[in-house]
């Protein structure tokens, strides 16, 4: 047994350790993506989508077909909402947007509309609303500081109704969770 400084063998071993760690992390990343992107089919009134697997889901209520929430999100739990809003004949997407803006203004605390525009989402024409509000839990014993929530609505015109996909996320998680929401949006068929 001899005392020695770093040898060539040590260098190779060091490279091998780095390599195996990088390989493990890449494999971990792919596995993470497969877990996060796994979904369960959802189908109501000829509207279908792939909802995230493992999220808390509530069934249809009023014009709300689906509300699914990620209980593991920090702060405000990331939420997707899918709605089917009946419309008067000849209603336009911008009119639906005005209706949604008024509704959000009444229901959501400190609601502010940030932007609205026509967009194309995976080949489908849509109208996009982006906004912000403060999460207001009505439970007075709720001890957490209110969260700033960023939201986004995509309005798809579908004959005499509008299919609206909404994304609500804590300001801190918004950018990180947006990619997953796009997968959900892509899966919506009507």
């Amino acid at each position, binding site marked *: *047994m*001899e*005392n*020695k*400084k*770093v*040898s060539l*063998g*040590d260098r*190779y*071993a*060091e490279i*091998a*350790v*780095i*390599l*195996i*760690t990088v390989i*493990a*992390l890449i*494999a*971990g*990343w792919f*596995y*993470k993506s497969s*877990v*996060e992107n796994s979904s369960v089919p959802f189908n109501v009134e000829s509207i279908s989508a792939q909802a995230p*697997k*493992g999220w808390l889901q509530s069934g249809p209520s009023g014009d709300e077909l689906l509300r699914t929430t*990620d209980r*593991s*999100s*920090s702060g405000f739990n990331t939420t997707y909402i899918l709605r089917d809003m009946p419309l008067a004949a000849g209603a336009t997407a911008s009119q639906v947007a005005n209706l949604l803006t008024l509704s959000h203004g009444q229901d959501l605390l400190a609601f502010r509309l940030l932007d609205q525009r026509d967009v194309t989402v995976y080949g489908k024409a849509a109208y996009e609303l982006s906004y912000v509000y403060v999460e207001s839990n009505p439970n007075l014993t709720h001890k957490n500081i209110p969260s700033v929530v960023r939201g986004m609505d995509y309005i798809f015109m579908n004959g005499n109704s509008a299919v609206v996909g909404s994304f609500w996320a804590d300001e801190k998680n918004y950018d*990180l969770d947006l990619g997953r929401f796009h997968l959900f949006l892509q899966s919506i068929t009507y």
Partner: protein
Amino acid sequence: MTESKAVHERKHVWRNEFLLIISLIVFVGVVYVLDGALKPVFTASTLLLTGIFLALVPAAIWLVFFYMQDRLEPEPKGYVLGVFALGALFAAAVGVPLIENVFRVSHWIYTNTLSTILGGILVVGFTQEFLKYAAVRYSVYPSGEFDEPTDGVIYATAAGLVYATVLNIQYVVSNGGVGLGTGIIRMAVVALAQASFSGITGYFLGRAKFESEQVWWMPLGITLAAVFNGLFNWLRSNLSQTNVSLSGASANPWIGLALAALVAFATTGAVLWLVRRNLNSVQSGK
């Protein structure tokens, strides 16, 4: 450096490893009993400061034993502090942000058993074990002061304990403090586990430096430590998970502590046996 120093067993190292485990368990018991008896009331800031103080205790206990041993078998204090500093830097600047913010493991790792095990090994295990290895490899390892295989275990344990300290401080700060009783158990569990898995890496590091092992030797050590790390976290989350009943919810952190102590004793015993066997074969081959 004489050859005789490079091959002797250094019983104090192993005594310290076992004393660390026993002292931590005793310390947890004392804090738990005092918390139950005195029921101290904290303000937000004193709760935070107490939590941070408790997080520092495992590494402090090890340092006390280390300096006691040091009078008999001196190790350069600068290198020990260097491993502590580099380990803390790697943990705080790379480990925690990578696991929590890039991989966001808390969002998906507990989805099912497979994700707990695979995520625990591939992401948490490999990240933590690589960074602890790096803290030793890029500080004391190339120096002449790393002059016997047992040094691998000493310095890797230091890296593991400082990693545990960073994890515990992060936990305390992100929760605005912790309850004394359950807090100290959690901290001891993290410290025992991190030190144990580092011991495995340390054994492989020690042999890698002195025995011209194959190129796969060190990757094997990191992989073994990462696998144990992942399996331990899965087992602990399974055994000490919260039980919900009509009378309320309860978690049993003592099971986690018992498991961590068992793993620490078993790992230290196994590494000690391997080092002894190795020394015997070297001595008999002379």
